[in-house]
């Protein structure tokens, strides 16, 4: 049960994947957190704040794990990096849109994340396995919540079904992009430190595909938008996210 000694290539593979995970969750937490106070019912203000805190907690977990590997400071990474150094998928930087868009994005992401965590909880790199097992619990609650919401919207009114279907059209290629292999990750996969995302993609398509089919939703036939391809929304997002921290570059702490 002790950590294997890591080769340089393995350590780099871990760092690469941790960077994508942390950045995805940071940005998603940021987006979702912005709903608080503006949700359709008070109960959802609470639920979304909860999801946002969980995602932020996961981001912190990945950054802390990264700290143990390369000594980097989590806050420094979150609040002082330039856009070009972020490694998230563009799905998490898109603005919130309407409720259907927010819920569907969250559902598609939750399903990806839950499957990734499930696989990662069997990683031979024990600290990763522990962190993943803990995060998985919360992620499955999200998945349940967002699966129910997509169901409600799909089977609710013609208006809600239409909005959900539009959201699916827009989100699908971004969601597929979550499964694009990371160059440099292979040594981690070969050593059973990291899950193989191409295998996860099949499970995800079955899980998500079955749910959508039951709700009579058909995803568009489009190519994945890979990580690294960004939208014009990233600049303003980071300007907001890092605004206070950057106004006080000399601050020793907050």
């Amino acid at each position, binding site marked *: 049960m002790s950590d294997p000694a890591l080769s340089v290539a393995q350590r780099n593979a871990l760092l690469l994947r941790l960077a994508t995970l942390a950045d995805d969750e940071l940005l998603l937490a940021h987006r979702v957190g912005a709903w608080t106070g503006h949700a359709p019912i008070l109960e959802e*203000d609470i639920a979304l704040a909860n999801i946002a805190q969980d995602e932020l907690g996961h981001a912190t977990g990945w950054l802390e794990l990264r700290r143990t590997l390369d000594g980097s400071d989590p806050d420094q990474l979150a609040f002082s990096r330039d856009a070009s150094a972020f490694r998230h998928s563009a799905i998490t930087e898109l603005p919130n849109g309407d*409720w259907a868009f927010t819920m569907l994005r969250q559902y598609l992401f939750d399903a990806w994340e839950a499957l990734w965590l499930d696989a990662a909880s069997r990683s031979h790199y024990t600290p990763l396995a522990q962190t993943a097992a803990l995060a998985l619990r919360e992620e499955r609650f999200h998945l349940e919540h967002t699966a129910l919401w997509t169901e*409600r919207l799909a089977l609710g009114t013609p208006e*809600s079904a239409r909005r959900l279907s539009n959201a699916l059209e827009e989100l699908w290629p971004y969601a597929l992009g979550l499964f694009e292999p990371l160059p440099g990750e292979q040594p981690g996969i070969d050593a059973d430190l990291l899950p193989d995302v191409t295998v996860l993609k099949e499970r995800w398509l079955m899980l998500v595909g079955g749910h959508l089919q039951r709700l009579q939703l058909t995803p568009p036939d489009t190519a994945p938008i890979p990580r690294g391809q960004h939208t014009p929304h990233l600049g303003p997002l980071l300007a907001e996210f890092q605004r206070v*921290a950057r106004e006080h570059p000399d601050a*020793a702490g907050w």
Partner: protein
Amino acid sequence: MTEAARIHPGETPEQHAAFEARIQRGEKIEPGDWMPAEYRRQLIRMISQHAHSEVVGMLPEGEWITRAPSLRRKLILMAKVQDEAGHGQYLYHAAETLGATREAMLDALLSGQAKYSSIFNYPTRSWADVGMIGWLVDGAAIKNQTMLAGCSYGPYSRAMVRICSEETFHHKQGKEMIVTYARGTAGQRQMAQDALNRWWWPALMMLGPHDADSPNSGVLTRWGIKLKSNDEVRQQFLDEHVPELLEAGLSIPDPLLHQDEQGHWRHGPIDWSEFWAVVKGERGLNRERLATRQQAHQDGAWVREAMSAYAARTAPTA
């Protein structure tokens, strides 16, 4: 000021006397119990106003969730604003025990008929405002809520106990932020002092008009709803917060502030014209806050319709 309570048609002085005797004995009034219509009316007014304050109160701080400058602060702020939503929920439930409905209460808020604490109509201009609100506004609220935790209506009293215990965390977190910034860089210190300059007087005013100008107090006191006067609560607030603010190295924007012979801190004259202007919406963000809530409500209409349609499909039939 202990004027007799209004006796509604269908109520007898004997009923009132028995009711007031219960309160004298320190008993809690529970939802099924007999109570004067006026007692019910006053409570619904107060509790729903309190609930609305929590809901609108999400907005000024909520704006900063996307700008919090560290992971820990972002997490803490999300949790805090979430708590406010939760407090709104508790309080709406407490008002429902008196026969009010959530829908009617929300309508009253959105149409501008119902009030909420005007403290939330002040803008949050910098990140330090989040800390200052936690320290001063939550600090003042806790003084008020601790008093209300002793009130005669059971569900309100219990909601207050729960809310107070959560607010205590917010208060400590806010204070800790400001104390940190007051000891921080020049920019942080300045931000903290500026926030204090803007929030000091509103925080004092949020505890309500001076006793001499407080119209409902007599009967509320008699019925055990209000156990302390506005000025008494304000004095407690001052005596706790003034020394702590000074110790943090901040200056309080009141040249006449001083300690009296008994050691109580006494403030200079309050500009009540500003208070009433904000209450009436002539100054501050009343219009914007309501517009934000109305927008959220309107944007959510199709979602609530979808929820009902879905619920109807899956609801049991007789």
